[in-house]
């Protein structure tokens, strides 16, 4: 499947943390062609296994690639007497980004709605400088309380209604590019690996609940028990309001994270591979545990050497996230070439401190 098309299908589908399974058919259909075996574990992670060239289990190297399926969203908290819904957030949602949004309430059926708030004529003019709190917002699905009660339950999830669209210059905008862009890079990696030899067994994991607990990465890393775990996630893209030191730039390749969450020698190897194959890349600094699946992978079982690749993304956790398709392609390519560079012979040396 074309990677941009795959990304579009992924982003247009809804899968708030804990409710990711809508994505399963899209991911499985795309991954099937490039992998040998796909399982869904008890928490809902999809684990796709691609065998390496080495068949004897003693010398086999296992690499796990994790990109998370879930997206941030909202959840129904209460139903008002006029049928309006009250809600709370799942994952990190800035209340300022949801006012006036169109949403889909995932009730017994998908229901269209609009987020409104306290009317301006009842606000002090000074209040316009204050953000409206989530508890002062409502969702209007245009139905009476009686009809809402039949279709909506407290606890139903809500997503912003937004479709992936092209900006100029190969950039795209959508909701949930965090981290569907990572899943798209995973597919790119598979396509590259299809063309080259690799010794290592690869386990491509699309993980659940990264935005709330990283539970998916934790249990899948336990199950796979890899020699190396790599999280493919998104990194803060450079915009005027952010310090340059906090960001990476769109179009300039994946960010390669450096810091405590990252195995230092493996990272050197990764940068070496990128430079050897002229794959653009940037350094992303993160001193402690990163906000990615690698945070969980690193401390699974007796500890797993971890890496993080970050696709530069602007306006993270809004419904208008922006990525450059080139970065997704380069992330996939770098992953594949890195995987191909790992053998049972060189792994021991790479993991030495």
């Amino acid at each position, binding site marked *: 499947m074309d990677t941009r098309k795959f990304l579009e299908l992924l982003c247009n589908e809804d899968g708030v943390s804990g409710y990711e399974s809508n994505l399963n058919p899209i991911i499985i259909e795309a991954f099937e062609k490039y992998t040998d075996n796909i399982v869904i574990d008890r928490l809902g992670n999809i684990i796709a296994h691609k065998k390496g060239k080495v068949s004897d289990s003693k010398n086999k190297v296992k690499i796990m690639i994790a990109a998370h399926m879930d997206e941030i969203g909202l959840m129904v908290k209460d139903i008002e007497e006029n049928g309006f819904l009250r809600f709370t957030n799942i994952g990190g949602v800035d209340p*300022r980004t949801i*006012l006036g*949004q169109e949403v889909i309430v995932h009730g017994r059926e998908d229901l269209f709605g*609009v987020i409104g708030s306290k*009317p301006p004529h009842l606000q002090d003019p000074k209040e316009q400088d204050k953000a409206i709190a989530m508890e002062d917002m409502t969702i209007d699905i*245009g139905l009476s309380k009686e009809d809402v009660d039949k279709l909506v339950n407290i606890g139903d999830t809500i997503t912003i209604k937004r479709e992936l669209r092209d900006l*100029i210059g190969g950039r795209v905008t959508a909701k949930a590019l965090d981290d569907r862009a990572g899943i798209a890079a995973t597919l790119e990696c598979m396509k590259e690996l299809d063309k080259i030899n690799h010794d290592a067994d690869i386990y491509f994991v699309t993980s659940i609940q990264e935005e709330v607990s990283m539970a998916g990465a934790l249990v899948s890393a336990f199950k796979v028990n890899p020699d190396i775990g790599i999280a493919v996630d998104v990194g803060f893209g450079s915009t005027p309001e952010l310090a340059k030191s906090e960001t990476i730039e769109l179009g300039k390749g994946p960010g390669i994270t450096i810091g405590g969450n990252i195995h230092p020698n493996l990272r050197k190897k990764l940068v070496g591979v990128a430079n050897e194959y002229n794959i653009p890349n940037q350094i992303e600094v993160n001193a402690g545990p990163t906000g990615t699946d690698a945070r969980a992978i690193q401390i699974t079982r007796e500890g797993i050497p971890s890496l993080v690749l970050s696709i530069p993304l*602007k306006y993270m956790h809004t419904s208008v996230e922006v990525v450059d398709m080139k970065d997704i392609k380069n992330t996939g390519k770098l992953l594949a070439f890195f995987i191909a560079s790992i053998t049972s012979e060189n792994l021991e040396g790479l993991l030495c401190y």
Partner: protein
Amino acid sequence: MLLRELTESSGVSGNEKEVRDLIISEIKDHVTSLKIDRLGNIIAHKKYKGNGKRLMITAHMDEVGLIVTEIDSMGLLKFITVGGIDKRILVSKTVLIGKDKVLGVIGAKPIHLQKKNERTKALNLDELYIDIGATSKEEAEEKISIGDYVLFSSEYIEFGDGLVKAKALDNRVGCSLLVKLIKEIDDVDFYAVFTVMEEVGLVGAGPAAYEVNPDMTVILEGTLCYDMPKLDTHLIPTYLNKGPAISLIDRTTLYDREFRERIVEVAEKNKIPYQYRKTSMGGNDSGKIHIAREGSVTTTISVPCRYIHSPSSVMSKSDYNNTFALLKAILSEFKKEVL
């Protein structure tokens, strides 16, 4: 469907051409005379055996939006608002810029990098910008010029129990009703006027009223509706699904009581649900019309719209239909010279 086409058309105040062209193509075969005046207002006349009084019905064509004021070195667009927009509704939205409707997004700082108290402050216009994907000023300038108008990107959607979500329901709903009236009524003499630049200070209405010189005017509008839960009823300006809202007073007009009472009588006689618009907030073209030349009486009849002046305003089809029924009944009374 006309309301869909009208709401999805581009018509930020001062840039109404697309809406104007659409309306003209719809009405040109149904009116006796039609002119576009020097400001861009459409003034159409349906001639019929008159009763000696001039009746004018108006709807403004323009909508609130944005205008590009600067293209910065990173290719990002700075803007100001055109008409009254709560800056807080702009964050995390998609917009369409210029004639070619180039897609852009208004993003925001990631929540992860915010200080805790930032989240409670509204983002000011000077902190917001539009991103079209360009990485340099030059790349952006291939697509965008300073002065380009910016629309909310919002599709017409029907949902819930007979509701419609669209941008610019204020006042394409009025335009749609007036076009429908022109098409369906052939035996009443009236002037149909579609005005420009209502949202930036009732600019078009005065000159149009000067030209038509009406005895009485009905202004069609989409108006504030905040029937939120747990509000005291006196704080609710209009309700959805309770019929057309008839204005009492707003910031621009103290409406003629006698004319209003006649309108109410017409509604009651024809068993058409109606409500009063219970706020003095806002204003509309009536402000300029009722004081044009030697003055004339006006009434404003509105379709209630939730989340007005946002990308996602909401109205009820039953209110739309009841407003149309009331208009038809008013014209029929006018014909009988009862009005």
